């Protein structure tokens, strides 16, 4: 795996009529990763993806793709974007959509697109508007993949799909990733769908980055503690606590701690699931965000 980054955001912000849809966003997705962009609705996921494609210009900061500013023609040719709701030209036939891609993209791979559609059983002479939702998603994904992108950005690719179509789209995407060198960033608010496919996690919440990192490292770096509430303050004072829920007797803490960390035996300690981790961070929006921590560390802050 190369050390270069596919997508870099530095202090990136976007404001609409006084509201920050995305603020002070700094993150880097290494090349070759499949990154999940997770967050509740309105967290700024779409805004971040639109900034990365150049559909939007930043209000502050910058975003670059393979070191080049996003949105330039040369950059655009290396990036494919599948927008939310998978827009296609309804009046076009599937063949027209391929022709559209061929006319507008120098690196267009028509053969693979046709092979893919044939394998999916999608007829080329059918009008796009007459296809099922799952088939439309597949056509949209085919168009995006046939561009031969080095970075593929997908905005809620699984929304509005039935479970079977979800599974197929994800599987096909993974096949495509395995076949060629490609970085993928896909946004979703359905975490379980991402567990088996993604190896990088970005959590956006309220327009800010809460978490950005390798999923395995993140999982390994957090522990879920369950135990008597009397011990909670001690742990919370000693370790970074992401999530702290207490009842009268029992406390459940999600803390930042490696496998080597030793705890009082009265705690029940276990590792976290991806979904637990995401939910814990989303529940505490002010909680530690990795890039901030690093920054704070560099600056000598708390």
């Amino acid at each position, binding site marked *: 795996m190369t050390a270069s980054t596919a997508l870099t955001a530095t202090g990136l912000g976007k404001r609409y009529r006084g509201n920050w849809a995305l603020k002070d966003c700094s993150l880097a997705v290494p090349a070759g990763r499949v990154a999940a962009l997770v967050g509740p609705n309105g967290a700024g996921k779409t805004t971040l993806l639109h900034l990365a494609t150049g559909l*939007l210009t930043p209000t502050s900061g910058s975003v670059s793709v393979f070191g080049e500013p996003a949105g330039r*023609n040369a950059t655009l040719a290396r990036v494919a*974007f599948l*927008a939310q709701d998978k*827009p*296609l*030209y309804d009046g076009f036939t599937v063949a027209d959509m391929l022709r*559209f891609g061929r006319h507008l993209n120098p690196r267009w791979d028509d053969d693979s697109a046709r092979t893919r559609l044939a394998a999916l059983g999608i007829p080329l002479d059918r009008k796009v508007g007459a296809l099922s939702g799952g088939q439309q998603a597949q056509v949209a994904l085919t168009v995006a993949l046939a*561009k031969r992108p080095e970075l593929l950005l997908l905005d809620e690719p699984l929304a509005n799909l039935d479970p079977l179509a979800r599974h197929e789209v994800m599987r096909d995407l993974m096949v495509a990733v395995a076949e060629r060198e490609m970085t993928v960033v896909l946004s979703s608010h359905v975490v379980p769908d991402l567990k088996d496919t993604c190896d990088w996690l970005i959590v956006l919440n309220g327009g800010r980055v809460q978490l950005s990192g390798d999923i395995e490292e993140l999982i390994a770096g957090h522990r879920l503690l369950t135990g008597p509430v009397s011990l909670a303050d001690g742990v919370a004072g000693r370790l970074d606590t992401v999530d702290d829920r207490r009842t009268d007797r029992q406390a459940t803490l999600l803390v930042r701690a490696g496998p080597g960390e030793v705890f009082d035996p009265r705690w029940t300690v276990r590792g976290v699931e991806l979904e637990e981790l995401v939910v814990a961070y989303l529940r505490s929006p002010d909680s530690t965000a990795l890039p901030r921590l690093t920054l704070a560390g560099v600056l000598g802050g708390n």
Partner: protein
Amino acid sequence: MYWMTLRQHRMQLLVTLGLLAAFGVVLLVHGIGTASATEGLTGHALEEALGSRQDVLLAVIGWFPVLPALIGVFWGAPVLSREYERGTHLLAWTQSVSRRRWVLTKLGVLALLVTLAGLALGLMVDAWIGVGGARVEQRFGDTAVFTTSGVAAAGWWLFAFMLGASAGALFRRLLPAMAVTIAVFVVALWLFMVNRGEYATPERFVSDITAPMAFPEGSVPAGGAWLDDRGVEVSDDAVAGVCADEGRDTYLPCMAEEGYRTVNYLHRADQYWRFQWTEAGLLLGAALVLGGVGYHRGTRASVR
């Protein structure tokens, strides 16, 4: 990009070309019929015969000045607004073609096609009204025919297209863009029709009241006044008291007796091409401004 533009607007293209061709056939058949029906006729008889045949179609052509509004609504308004409405701009503008090229090509290619179509209509109407040669001045005197013939027709079609396109770029929704296109078009058409006389300085014709007025064939009046015995133009109010007691038959002779003459201003029919090019030029200028607005809005970096 060219393929994409033509494919996306295939329907408008085919319908417009079909209707133009159908109307062209009607004009051709009717023109040939007129030519054979008036063969051998000259002078007043020819004029009358031409008139009785052409007036049927002229009644239809009388509505043609509003046709470009349809071009604005069905060609212009959807070009950008429908992309925004359906979200396909997110697809189109993330391919390897810059947004500038995308908007420029679409507006440019469609504007060219619309202009050529309008020109075809204009030249067809010109040819049709010219049959027999005796009533060709109608294209100048009849304001509807003037708008629908020659290069002015092309100007109007282009103007309406750019109007629709820029409205679509501004509103980003099809329906408001259509409504605004129609409203602005109607106002523009009215402004042009009212102010057309200003394209050139009219010719001045002074005539004696009692002699029959003989103005050049097909000329368009551009105002008139009384001329007193010193040759000074006077207003209607100023002559209100003169010969006030005379009856209908004796009023004009009385005025002549008092030394009054009339002065008339008019544009001769041979000014047709000068007026045509002036109108087309003004419309082209307006279309360029509107196209600039559409281009600017359409290529703005941020799109939501």
